[in-house]
């Protein structure tokens, strides 16, 4: 194997020959070996050797974003839709700093991402060289792990490991910073490492699982509380099966929407700050809370001391540091939630729980989510429903961040895991448009709809150019209220109606903007038959921007004031 062999001998896999390759070529080859077919990024001086090598790849398609944050969110969209680690690229300095928001967003939502950045040559690191920034240092707190690569040789270990780390355990972003001279350094490569991938976890504690089963069997008013981990683990089906067997009313966090179909009889939908009244009221009464791949986020729990005050807690999570972080669990189980549910379900007794489910139905009918003007496709809930009426469950739904996001979370009939792409933990305005493009690139057979607002869309509007270029089957539904709606709402409710910096005095013409980018448009407010026009726009292949004005005085209700108990809901 160490003996140099002629290039032609590479044809046979049995006796790999050595080749002379640059660091950049090695990275491209390793990405190909990972099965990566699409990457997104923007070139610049310090990553040009890599781009030069990438140009020779016949397996990898490069999507040229218009801002590195867009590239990061395009990769996130691919990862969220597919569940596989996705790759974004940026040059040193501003290229790298522009990626940071998308990386931090991936960290908080546990999205597997591999970010590759160029760095100034090693000899110039620490000299304040042109476009030099401490990418390694900047990315420490927002990555699962990061690397500053010191030699071309190291790449053979670092790149597969980056994929392993991104995909294993609790998924997350990994950054690989590669100095320009390392990209250019040529070495002999005689053997390729195995591609990185998801590694198995240690088996969960069976005694704890048995205890959990006994608690479920003994409970009178149990609730199943699903988080994003259920989606990441591919455990949605197992979770629904457990709920059905033990008759468990099931609530989902923002990240878990779609894990159980919204119209499943046991679904009590989203909990927390903008959950329906009946959901938060039922949680108040439960005597056992079974948290699966959820992290007791403050938007879900409200005031923690008042969250499920009568309940014992079973907490299942792949990340041991989540157990007892916010709420002490009576039984904490560290493990892959899919694997734990598989072991737990056979120990759980079938149970009808007629009294509890009757009570659930009673609360639901008395305190369900209010959706006024549902029949008007130019109202906020009406528009969301009208879009849903035109699509089936194969469509993917992305959002930006703000009022529109909460309305869609409350009201869109999500029925499939990975159908839903939203920025949960970081709540990043500007997420929607590029992430939706990523989803469309990963699954071109699907229609992707991105609900956005007039505040959010401007934060990454440059990616309309990327969307037009890709001809992605992506429909942007812009709910324009001429305001930063959630800020406006909070100022009205909690700051004595002292509105400040939340209304836009001058607004661009979004329809003309979209036209300028070469994107088809629909003005819902002037359409003679809005429903028919909407259906047509959603069914026409390719990108389209659908614009509707929304009254800025509309609120997201119910609302739990920040820091209050979930039972202290306003409105709805």
């Amino acid at each position, binding site marked *: 194997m160490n003996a140099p062999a002629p290039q032609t001998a590479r044809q046979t896999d049995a006796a790999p020959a050595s080749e002379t390759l640059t660091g950049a070529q090695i990275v491209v080859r390793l990405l190909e070996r990972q099965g990566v077919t699409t990457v997104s990024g923007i070139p610049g001086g310090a990553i040009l050797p890599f781009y030069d090598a990438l140009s020779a790849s016949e397996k990898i398609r490069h999507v040229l974003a218009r801002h590195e944050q867009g590239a990061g969110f395009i990769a996130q969209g691919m990862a969220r839709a597919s569940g596989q680690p996705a790759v974004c690229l940026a040059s040193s300095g501003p290229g790298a700093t522009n990626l940071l928001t998308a990386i931090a967003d991936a960290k908080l939502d546990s999205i597997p991402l591999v970010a590759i950045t160029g760095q100034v040559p090693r000899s110039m690191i620490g000299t304040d060289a042109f476009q030099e920034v401490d990418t390694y240092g900047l990315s420490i707190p927002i990555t699962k792990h990061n690397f*500053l690569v010191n030699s071309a040789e190291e790449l053979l270990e670092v790149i597969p490991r980056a994929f392993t780390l991104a995909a294993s355990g609790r998924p997350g972003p990994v950054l690989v910073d590669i100095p320009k001279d390392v990209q250019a350094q040529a070495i002999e490569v005689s053997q390729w490492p195995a591609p990185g991938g998801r590694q198995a976890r240690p088996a969960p504690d069976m005694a704890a699982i048995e205890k959990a089963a006994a608690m479920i069997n003994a409970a009178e008013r149990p609730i199943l509380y699903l988080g994003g981990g259920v989606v990441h683990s591919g455990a949605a089906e197992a979770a629904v099966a457990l709920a059905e067997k033990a008759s468990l009313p099931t609530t989902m966090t923002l990240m878990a929407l779609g894990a159980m179909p919204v119209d499943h009889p046991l679904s009590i939908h989203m909990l927390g700050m903008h959950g329906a009244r009946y959901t938060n009221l039922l949680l108040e009464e439960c005597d056992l809370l079974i948290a699966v791949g959820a992290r007791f986020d403050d938007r879900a729990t409200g005031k923690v001391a008042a969250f499920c005050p009568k309940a014992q807690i079973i907490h299942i999570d792949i990340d*041991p540091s989540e157990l007892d972080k916010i709420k002490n669990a009576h039984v904490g189980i560290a493990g892959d939630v899919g694997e734990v549910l598989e072991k737990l379900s056979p120990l759980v007794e079938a149970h009808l729980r007629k009294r509890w489910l009757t009570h659930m139905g009673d609360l639901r009918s008395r305190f369900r989510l209010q959706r006024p003007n549902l029949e008007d496709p130019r109202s906020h809930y009406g528009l969301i429903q009208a879009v849903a009426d035109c699509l089936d469950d194969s469509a993917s739904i992305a959002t930006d961040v703000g009022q529109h996001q909460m309305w869609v979370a409350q009201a869109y009939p999500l029925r499939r895991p990975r159908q839903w792409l939203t920025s949960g933990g970081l709540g990043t305005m500007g997420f929607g448009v590029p992430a939706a493009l990523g989803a469309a690139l990963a699954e071109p057979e699907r229609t992707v709809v991105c609900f956005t607002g007039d505040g959010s869309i401007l934060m990454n509007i440059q990616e309309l150019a990327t969307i037009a270029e890709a001809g992605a089957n992506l429909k942007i539904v812009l709910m324009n209220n001429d305001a930063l709606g959630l800020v406006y709402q909070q100022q009205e409710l909690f700051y004595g109606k002292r509105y400040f910096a939340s209304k836009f005095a001058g607004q661009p013409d979004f329809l003309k903007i979209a036209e300028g980018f070469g994107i088809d448009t629909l003005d819902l407010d002037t359409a003679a038959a809005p429903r028919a026009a909407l259906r047509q726009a959603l069914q026409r292949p390719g990108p389209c921007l659908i614009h509707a004005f929304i009254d800025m005085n509309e609120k997201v209700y119910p609302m739990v004031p920040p820091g209050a108990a979930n039972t202290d809901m306003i409105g709805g």
Partner: protein
Amino acid sequence: MNAVSKNENAALARPQRTVLELEVNNHAGVMSHVVGLFSRRAYNVEGILCLPVGDGSISRIWLLVLEDRRLEQMVKQVEKLEDVRTVRRHGADHAVFERLEEFFR
């Protein structure tokens, strides 16, 4: 000040001290990962000591911290770091920082 026993410490209502012993991969950046976990939570590290062990591929880091209710979570976060191999907790009576005292007089 190290002459006080645990009980005396409690009596004085001074925060209890804990010594953490970490075994880590020895490369640039590991220290930054470890102390960053503390600094970003405004959790002060009172003392740090680090030297390579064995062939130099591994280092041992000793941290002296004050106990508070976040310590359990801190230890779990440190354990999660990729370059941290093991974490052990010792009581305040561990000798490592006490013997260093003479260099800080």
